[in-house]
């Protein structure tokens, strides 16, 4: 399901125009981004948790050349599905 299909379904469900759906999606993502930048997480029942986690720096070795690289720390957006959703997978 690509973005276009997604927007269509969303606009159908909410009974709004496709353009409005697109702007609202942008706004929603903007709001969530601010939440993540504050260090908070977005937690929705039935869906899961979207949160930013910090990965520590580490030394990685290229197995073929043996070159050592110092990988810097980074912030990564992670998603953890809710147990409800996981149940549905089975």
């Amino acid at each position, binding site marked *: 399901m690509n973005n276009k299909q*997604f927007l269509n379904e969303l606009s159908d469900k909410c009974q709004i125009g496709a353009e409005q759906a697109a702007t609202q999606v942008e*706004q*929603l993502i903007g709001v969530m981004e601010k939440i993540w*930048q504050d260090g908070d997480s977005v937690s929705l029942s*039935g869906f899961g948790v979207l949160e930013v986690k910090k990965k520590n720096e580490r*030394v990685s070795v290229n197995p073929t050349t043996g070159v050592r690289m*110092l990988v810097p*720390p980074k912030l990564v957006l992670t998603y953890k599905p809710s147990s409800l959703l996981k149940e549905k997978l*089975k």
Partner: protein
Amino acid sequence: MDNKINLSQLAERLAQEGGMSKAAAEQFVKNFFDIISQRVLVEGLVKVKGLGTFKLIQMEDRESVNVNTGERFTIEGHQKISFVPDADLKDRINKPFAAFDTVEISKEQAEALSRMDEEDEQEAVAPVAPAAPEIPAAPEKPAVSEKPAEEPKKSAKEKRLEQKQAKKAEEAKMKAQKQQEKKEAAKVVDTPTVKDITQKKGTRCLLKVLIAILTMILVIGLVLFMLWPVVGNSVLDIVEKNLNKAKIEMVSDSVKTVAPAEVAPVKAVEAPAETESAKPAESPAVKPAQPQQKPAEPAVKPAKTPAGTDALTAAKYPVIKLNSKDEAKDLSEFTLADVVNYSMEGVLDTYTLKKGETLTIVALNYYGSKKLWPYIAKYNNIKDPARLKAGTVVKVPVLKSK
């Protein structure tokens, strides 16, 4: 920070941002995530521009080991929802760390990095090692601050002796360890590598302990050296008074009983060595030099067997034959005997311990003999007399001989 934003909070913020009603916003957010979770199950892939891709992926069967039992078992293949954030979003999230780049480093640098980590770990462990040699001497420590001092030379000698004793105990321990290791090594003769490892471990252990002892001695010497001029003069008077008292004390002690007498003088003599404050001022010039000599002496004969050191000690100081182990045994023996000789009847006085004081000092002050400290310990239910804190209030019982 670390707050969990739920559906209604998220909708509220969206309503503010987009100028729509809260109900509509909530409905919109709910639909947004409902579609994702439903469609990802049905179609296996949902792409949302600006957010990222949700994807259903198949995990293969894999083997794992039960951490507790060590049993192998298979984790059966299952499906998993993965999320890959949009590249733009990813960069924006990582903005605080965007300045860092992956750097190529040399082998040496990598090793230095891992060494740094190891050092951090060792630092946590290190304080334990230097403390160890002190433990055998701990019970005597108390006697110190008010305790009389013999001539400085002697006290210095005693100190050396004490350190030797501590070392002896350490060495004995090491020996036992070594023997055990040897036994272990003998068991696995077939595999010489294992033997090597155990021996290496042994030598490393020995080295560590030796270094720890040496640093201890150095530190004590330094502290003595630095504190001497400050404390020395002010204590002079007290020391002289106590000196006479202690001498009388010692004589009477040794007359009283034979077995405890052996221990008592040792205590009296060892005590002064322990503190700087008790140091006599008779020869201040000689003093500073001595602490520096000390570290050298134990270093010269580190490999001596306990028996050899024992004989040496005995020759130099005929009074002190006991090594720390025997001493501890004797101490407990006369402790028991003494408690039998007297009965405790009523409270004579209560006393608040000052810094550096111990039950032996209290006993000395009230009964005129430090050997009687176990009564105070027993009367106050003190289980660990070696670790009393300043400010502890003790009741001093009246003693009546049976």
